[in-house]
């Protein structure tokens, strides 16, 4: 048993988690202000922004992957710009994966956060404004601390969703070992070459890790409800 675990390569897993970690961090920074804005505004632009944000959920990953590939490749304006100015390629490498993942997982960060912000007692936010606090300070000191379950859900779901990414990653990243061959792609290849033993092992590890992550989220949420009555 132990030799099995000693013989497999861990690189795809590390790559998956690294990708998910970086993506989650970037998305968190972008999404908190966006979700707050969406929860507080009644502007006519709101449905438009919400639709754009939700698009990655409904689009087939291959469509998303295709458009990102086209938009970021060396032949496109964006790709050329990044190559000339930063000397950075955006496709078939880790950077390209991060960009693609940010699009792919955006709604999974924004929507729980927006839902959390929307479910806050509005009187409580008003009490903060009346106390002289700006909207920004209110968001940071009053709103965010009171949506811990939604925060946890957003972060964990985004992380898990990114780890599970396959179609987009394959199109934009290819399958370059150590660079873009994430766990989901590695398992696919194992099945293709009929190395079912490895596929089993890798898949089992993925299931166990995913389950443990989810379990810890639900336990945390349970403790939060008891402590704060949220």
């Amino acid at each position, binding site marked *: 048993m132990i030799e099995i675990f000693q013989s497999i390569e861990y690189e795809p897993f590390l790559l998956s988690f690294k990708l998910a970690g970086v993506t989650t961090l970037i998305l968190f920074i972008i999404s908190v202000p966006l979700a707050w804005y969406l929860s507080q505004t009644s502007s006519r632009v709101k449905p438009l922004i919400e639709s754009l944000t939700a698009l990655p959920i409904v689009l087939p990953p291959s469509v998303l992957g295709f458009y990102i590939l086209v938009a970021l490749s060396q032949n496109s304006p964006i790709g050329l710009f990044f190559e000339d100015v930063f000397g950075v390629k955006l496709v078939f490498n880790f950077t390209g994966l991060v960009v693609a993942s940010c699009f792919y997982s955006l709604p999974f960060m924004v929507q729980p956060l927006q839902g959390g912000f929307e479910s806050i007692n509005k009187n*409580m936010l008003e009490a*903060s404004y*009346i*106390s002289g606090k700006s909207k920004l300070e209110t968001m940071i000191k009053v709103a965010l601390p009171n949506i811990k379950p939604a925060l946890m859900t957003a972060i964990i779901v985004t992380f898990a969703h990114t780890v599970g990414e396959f179609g987009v990653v394959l199109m934009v990243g290819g399958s370059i070992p150590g660079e873009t061959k994430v766990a989901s792609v590695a398992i696919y290849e194992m099945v293709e070459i009929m190395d079912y033993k490895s596929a089993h092992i890798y898949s089992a590890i993925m299931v166990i890790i995913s389950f443990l992550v989810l379990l810890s989220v639900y336990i945390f949420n349970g403790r939060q409800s008891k402590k*704060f*009555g949220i």
Partner: protein
Amino acid sequence: MIKIDINKKLHGGHGEMDLDVNLEIKQGDFVALSGQSGSGKTTLLRILAGLEDSKGRVKIGDELWQDEKMMLPSQKRKIGFVFQDYALFPNMSVEQNLLFVKKDQALAKHLLDLTQLSELKDRLPNTLSGGQKQRVSLCRAMMNRPKLLLMDEPLSALDPAMRTKLQSEILALHKEFGTTTIMVSHDPSEIYRLASRVVVLNFGKIINDGLPKDVLLKTRGSQKFSFEGELLDIVKVDVINIAIVSIGQQLVEVVVSDNEVKNLKIGQSVSLSTKAFTPMIQGL
């Protein structure tokens, strides 16, 4: 002197309504705002707090809070607001709720002592009772020494004993800080105890404005008891009819004639009156 002259179109439960209020309030006054549900009381409070738009002018002393060209945001108005559902910050302790408004430890301690909350200062809001939460809400509203204190039915969710207790604390705070206060309330005894002036709103317009005694008393110097209540039931016992009426928190049984029974419907509001010849008053 607080000058209010505002106008706003409201969509209430009774259709469209024009909230049209022109009011002057003296510094330090305690004004009760009364009237049917949906008559615009909460909206008026929210307009004064800067939480809602309206047309018109609001001026506090020399400070212009609102006119045709500008509207000062809530953050810049020195007001205190006590919400009907307390609206405390669940992630902060009692003391932190107060200090969030202003880092004035001494004032916070003083307010907590006045409302007998000192022992609870490190507790989280979800461990407090309704009465305790409302006291915290009251203290928090006073922390930035507001020019105007607004209270939206602050005691309506509490039982009678707790109401009376909190009324005393509101009175004590008003005596000490002299803050101009506008309180929405439906409770006549509460209004009588706390307010020096009652303004009654109906469908967005002021229909009555004066001393609590004048506005609240249903009879004027006629030495008559007159109460409004709800007819709960009519029971026939032998040859007489007994009507059971609910008045305030109490039930009374009254004998009614067959004629009177014909005109009464169970569930309707009724008025009971009788001459008040030498009634017996006894302390409980």
